[in-house]
C-alpha cells in the first residue's frame, strides 16, 4: 500500500516552474551600490521567471505579504529573494512559503548584500555581479524539487554522560521535569572535580558543603538511573531514538539487589578496615593519600557502595588472599549464604573482607554487565583533567616533591584531604610559597594555546586559604595577566591583594633546587620592572590549566561530535547555539566544551537540559531533510562512498549489490555525492544537476556556444 502511494507520488506531473524574483533594497544597504531596477528588469528576462519585483525591505511583514499573495494567487510556484545571506533569512522566507502553502524547498536566496553590495563600491561592477548571482539562482530554482520533512517520535528519556557538577545538574533538571535520566559516570562515585576542591572562588563557599546535598539528590531521585563505575560503549541511532550500550564494570561488591533494587552494600566500610592492602595511592587525592584495595573513593561518595580495585586486590590478581583461595571462598560463601556455617567457622577459607561483611555483598565472580538503553537525547558532560605538568620540564614537577600543581594543593587544603586541610610538605609547613601562573596554558610549546580561565582565580583563592592557615607565609604569584573577568572576581582579587600577597608580572623561566638544601629557587624576569628575579621557596605551585578529560577521543568516536582545534567539543554556534552540537539531539555541558568555572558549568548544564526538554516535552523531532540519496539505477556497488561516510550512514545491500542510505543517520554532508564515480550518490537540494546549472549560468559569457 505504502509502495503504491510512493508510485503515485512519483507520477504526479511536476508543475512547470513559475519563478518569482523579489529584489530587496535593504533600505540603502543594497540600493546604494547596486542598480536595483536593472537587476529586477534583467531577472524578468531569465527562463521561467514570471514575476520580478523590488521592495524596500522584502523581509518585513508587508514584503513577505507580497510574496504570499503571489503564491496564493497561483502566479508563482518558486520564490527567489535577492537580498542578504541565506544564513540570515532563508529560514524566514521558508516560513513565508509554508504559510502560503508552498513547499519551503522551492525557496532560494540570492546573496547580493553580504557577498556583493557590501564588499565593493563600484556600482556597475556590483550590478553585473548581482545579475550573475540571480541568473545562477534562477538556473538552480528551475531544477529544485519539493522535499518532505520527516518528523519522528522522541523516546522521553535522556542519557547524561559524566557525573560531575554539570552532568549532575543536567540530570536533576530533566528528572525534576518528569523525564527519566540515565546518568553514567566512569568512576565509582559522582561528584567530579568539584568535590576535590576545598573552597570555591570568589565566595569561598565550602565546595563539599554545597555539592554533597546535590549528590544525594541525584542518588535518590526516582527518575534518575545512576550508573556509576560504568562507561558508555556504543551510541547508535539518531535524535529521538539513540540506542546506547553501557558497560557496568564489576565492583565485586553488590550495590543493589538485582531483583528488588534494595540497597545491599550499606557502606559500613568494614571490608576496607580489614583489607590487607592499605597503601594504594588514592586517585581522589591524586596519590597524595592512601587507600585499601576495598575502598570508597571519598567519604561522601554517592552511591555509598564500596569497590574492590581489580588491579590491586590480591584475591583478584593472584587468586589468593591469606589462606583463602578463590575456590575456597566460592564454596564458603555458598555455605554461609545457605546458613550452613557462620563466617567465623570458615574463616580460614575466606579473605578478611568477606569474613567481616555483614550483608554478604562481596562477589569475586562478578562480571562486566552491558546495559542497553533507548534515549531521545544525550547530554555529554565529560569534563576536564589537568594538563600534564611534565610538559614544562623547566618547572621540575615530579623531580622535586615540593613542586605541586593546583589541584594537588587543593587536596592539601581540603578538610577531607590527606592532611585534613593542613598544608604540609615533607612533614613541614612551608613559609615561602610561589605560584607560577599559566602553567601548561597559553603556551605554544605545550600545545595548549588557550587560556584555561580558572587558574588566576584559583591561585588567588589558594593564596588566601594558605594565609588563613599560615599567617606569616610569604606568598608570591607570578603572572602574565590576571584575568578576573567574572562576577565579583575583581573585587575578590582586590581584597586578596590587600592581604599582603606579592603579585609579580613575569612568568618563571625555571625552578631549581638551592644547592645543599631542599629549598627551591624560582627564576624569571619581572616584565614590569624589566629586571630578572630569583625567589626562594619552600613550595612552588604550578597553576596548571585544564584540558578535555581522558577518554574524550572515545566519546568523539561514538557520538561523531566535532572538536575545535583545542580538542574541546565544538558547539553548533559559538554565540547562539552554545550547547547544541552538529549532531541533533546531542548537547554538551560544562568543561568538555571549554574550560569554565562552576557557575558557568551549572548554567550550561541547565541550558543543555532545557534544550533536551524541548525534544522530550514535545515528543517530536524533525529529521534533517537535506540528505543523501543513492539512485538504484546508477549505483554500481563499488562501495567507495561507504568507507568515506563519516557517520556510517551508507549500507551495502548485498542482494541488490547497491548502496542504501540510512535516512535517520545521514546528516547531509554530501561526501558520498562528492566521491561517487557513477553519479549515483547525490544529495537532495544539492544535486549534481543543480550545481552544474549554477556553474553553467555563472560562466555563460565565457563558454563556447554549445
Amino acid at each position, binding site marked *: 500500500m505504502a509502495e503504491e502511494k510512493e508510485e503515485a507520488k512519483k507520477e504526479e506531473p511536476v508543475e512547470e516552474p513559475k519563478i518569482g524574483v523579489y529584489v530587496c533594497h535593504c533600505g540603502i544597504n543594497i540600493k546604494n551600490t547596486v542598480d536595483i531596477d536593472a537587476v529586477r528588469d534583467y531577472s524578468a528576462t531569465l527562463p521561467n521567471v514570471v514575476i520580478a519585483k523590488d521592495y524596500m525591505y522584502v523581509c518585513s511583514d508587508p514584503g513577505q505579504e507580497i510574496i504570499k499573495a503571489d503564491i496564493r494567487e497561483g502566479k508563482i510556484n518558486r520564490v527567489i529573494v535577492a537580498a542578504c*545571506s*541565506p*544564513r*540570515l533569512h532563508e529560514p524566514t522566507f521558508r516560513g513565508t512559503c509554508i504559510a502560503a502553502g508552498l513547499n519551503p524547498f522551492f525557496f532560494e536566496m540570492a*546573496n547580493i*548584500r*553580504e*557577498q*556583493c553590495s*557590501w*564588499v*565593493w*563600491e*563600484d556600482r556597475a*561592477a*556590483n550590478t*553585473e*555581479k548581482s545579475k*550573475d*548571482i540571480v541568473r*545562477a539562482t534562477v538556473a538552480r530554482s528551475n531544477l529544485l524539487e519539493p522535499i518532505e520533512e520527516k518528523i519522528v517520535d522522541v523516546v522521553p528519556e535522556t542519557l547524561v554522560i559524566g557525573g560531575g557538577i554539570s552532568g549532575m545538574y543536567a540530570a536533576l533538571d530533566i528528572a525534576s521535569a518528569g523525564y527519566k535520566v540515565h546518568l553514567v559516570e566512569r568512576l565509582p562515585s559522582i561528584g567530579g572535580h568539584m568535590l576535590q576542591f576545598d573552597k570555591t572562588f570568589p565566595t569561598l563557599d565550602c565546595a563539599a558543603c554545597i555539592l554533597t546535598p546535590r549528590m544525594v539528590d541525584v542518588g535518590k531521585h526516582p527518575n534518575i538511573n545512576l550508573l556509576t563505575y560504568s562507561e558508555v560503549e556504543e551510541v547508535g541511532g539518531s535524535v529521538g531514538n539513540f540506542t546506547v550500550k553501557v558497560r557496568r564494570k564489576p565492583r565485586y561488591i553488590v550495590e543493589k539487589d538485582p531483583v528488588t533494587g534494595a540497597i545491599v552494600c550499606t557502606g559500613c566500610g568494614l571490608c576496607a578496615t580489614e583489607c590487607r592492602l592499605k597503601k594504594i595511592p588514592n586517585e581522589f587525592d591524586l596519590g597524595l593519600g592512601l587507600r585499601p584495595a576495598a575502598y570508597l573513593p571519598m567519604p561522601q561518595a554517592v552511591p555509598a557502595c564500596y569497590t574492590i580495585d581489580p588491579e590491586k586486590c590480591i584475591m583478584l590478581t593472584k587468586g589468593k588472599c591469606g589462606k583463602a583461595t578463590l575456590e575456597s571462598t566460592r564454596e564458603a560463601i555458598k555455605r554461609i549464604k545457605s546458613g550452613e556455617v557462620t563466617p567465623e567457622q570458615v574463616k580460614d577459607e575466606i579473605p578478611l573482607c568477606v569474613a567481616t561483611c555483614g550483608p554478604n555483598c562481596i562477589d569475586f565472580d562478578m562480571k562486566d554487565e552491558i546495559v542497553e538503553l533507548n534515549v531521545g537525547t544525550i547530554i555529554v558532560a565529560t569534563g576536564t583533567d589537568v594538563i600534564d605538568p611534565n610538559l614544562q620540564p623547566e618547572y621540575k614537577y615530579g623531580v622535586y616533591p615540593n613542586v605541586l600543581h593546583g589541584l594537588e594543593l587543593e587536596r592539601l587544603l581540603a578538610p577531607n584531604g590527606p592532611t585534613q586541610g593542613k598544608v604540609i610538605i615533607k612533614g613541614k609547613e612551608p613559609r615561602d610559597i610561589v605560584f607560577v601562573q599559566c602553567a601548561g596554558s597559553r603556551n605554544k610549546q605545550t600545545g595548549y594555546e588557550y587560556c584555561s580561565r580558572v587558574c588566576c582565580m584559583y591561585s588567588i583563592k589558594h593564596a588566601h586559604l594558605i594565609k588563613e592557615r599560615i599567617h606569616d607565609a610569604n606568598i608570591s604569584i607570578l603572572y602574565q595577566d590576571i584575568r578576573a573577568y567574572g562576577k565579583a572576581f575583581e573585587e575578590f582579587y582586590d581584597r586578596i591583594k590587600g592581604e599582603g600577597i606579592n603579585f609579580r608580572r613575569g612568568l618563571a623561566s625555571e625552578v631549581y633546587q638551592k644547592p645543599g638544601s631542599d629549598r627551591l629557587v624560582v627564576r624569571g624576569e619581572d616584565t614590569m620592572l624589566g629586571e630578572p628575579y630569583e625567589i626562594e621557596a619552600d613550595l612552588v605551585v604550578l597553576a596548571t590549566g585544564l584540558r578535555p578529560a581522558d577518554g574524550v577521543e572515545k566519546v568523539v568516536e561514538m557520538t*561523531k561530535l*566535532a*572538536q*575545535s*582545534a583545542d580538542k574541546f567539543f*565544538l558547539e553548533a554556534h*559559538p554565540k547562539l547555539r552554545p550547547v547544541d552540537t*552538529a549532531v541533533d539531539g546531542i548537547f554538551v555541558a560544562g568543561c568538555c566544551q571549554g574550560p569554565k568555572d562552576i557557575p558557568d558549568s551549572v548554567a550550561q548544564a541547565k541550558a543543555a537540559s532545557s534544550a533536551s526538554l524541548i525534544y522530550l516535552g514535545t515528543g517530536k523531532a524533525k529529521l534533517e531533510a*537535506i540528505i543523501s540519496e543513492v539512485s538504484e539505477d546508477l549505483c554500481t556497488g563499488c562501495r567507495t562512498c561507504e568507507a*568515506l561516510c*563519516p*557517520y556510517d550512514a551508507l549500507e551495502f545491500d548485498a542482494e541488490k549489490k547497491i548502496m542504501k542510505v540510512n535516512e535517520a543517520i545521514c*546528516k*547531509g*554532508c*554530501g*561526501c558520498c*555525492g*562528492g*566521491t*561517487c564515480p557513477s553519479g549515483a550518490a547525490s*544529495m537532495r537540494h*544539492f544535486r*549534481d544537476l543543480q*550545481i*552544474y546549472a*549554477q*556553474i*553553467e549560468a*555563472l*560562466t555563460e*559569457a*565565457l*563558454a*563556447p556556444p554549445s
Partner: protein
Amino acid sequence: MATEKEEFEPLIVGITCNWCTYAAADLAGTSRLKYPPNIRLLRVMCSSRIHPSFILYSFARGADGVFIGGCHPRECHYIDGNYKALRRIELLRRMLEQFGIEPERLRLEWCSAAEGAKYAQVVTDFTAKLKELGPSPLRSG
C-alpha cells in the same frame, strides 16, 4: 597587449561549505571589508560534497579560477569532510596541469566563520594572481 591585460577581469567560480568559508564571506560583508567583485560563490553543505567534476566543469566552461573553501582542519561540521576535499583537490591539481590548466588557477583555502578578513584577503590575492596569469586557455568569451 599591456592595456588589454589591464582590462582583463577574471571570473572566479567559488564553491564553499555552508558552515565556515561561506560564513566567512558573509562576515567580510557584514564587516564592510572590500575585495574585488570577481568571485561568485556557490554554497554546498560541506567541502566534501564538491565532486572534482564541479571543478573540471567550471574550467571547461571557461572560468579563470576556481576557489574552494571549507572549514579548518578538525573544524569540519561533518567531522572530517575537509580532509577528503583536500585529498581530492590535490590529486585533481596534478591532473589540471596535464590538461594545460595552470594549477594555480585552483585555490583551496580554509576560512573559519570568524575569518572574514582572511576571506577578503584570499580573494584579493587570488584575483590579482589570475590577472597575472591572464584569461583561462579554455575561455572563449
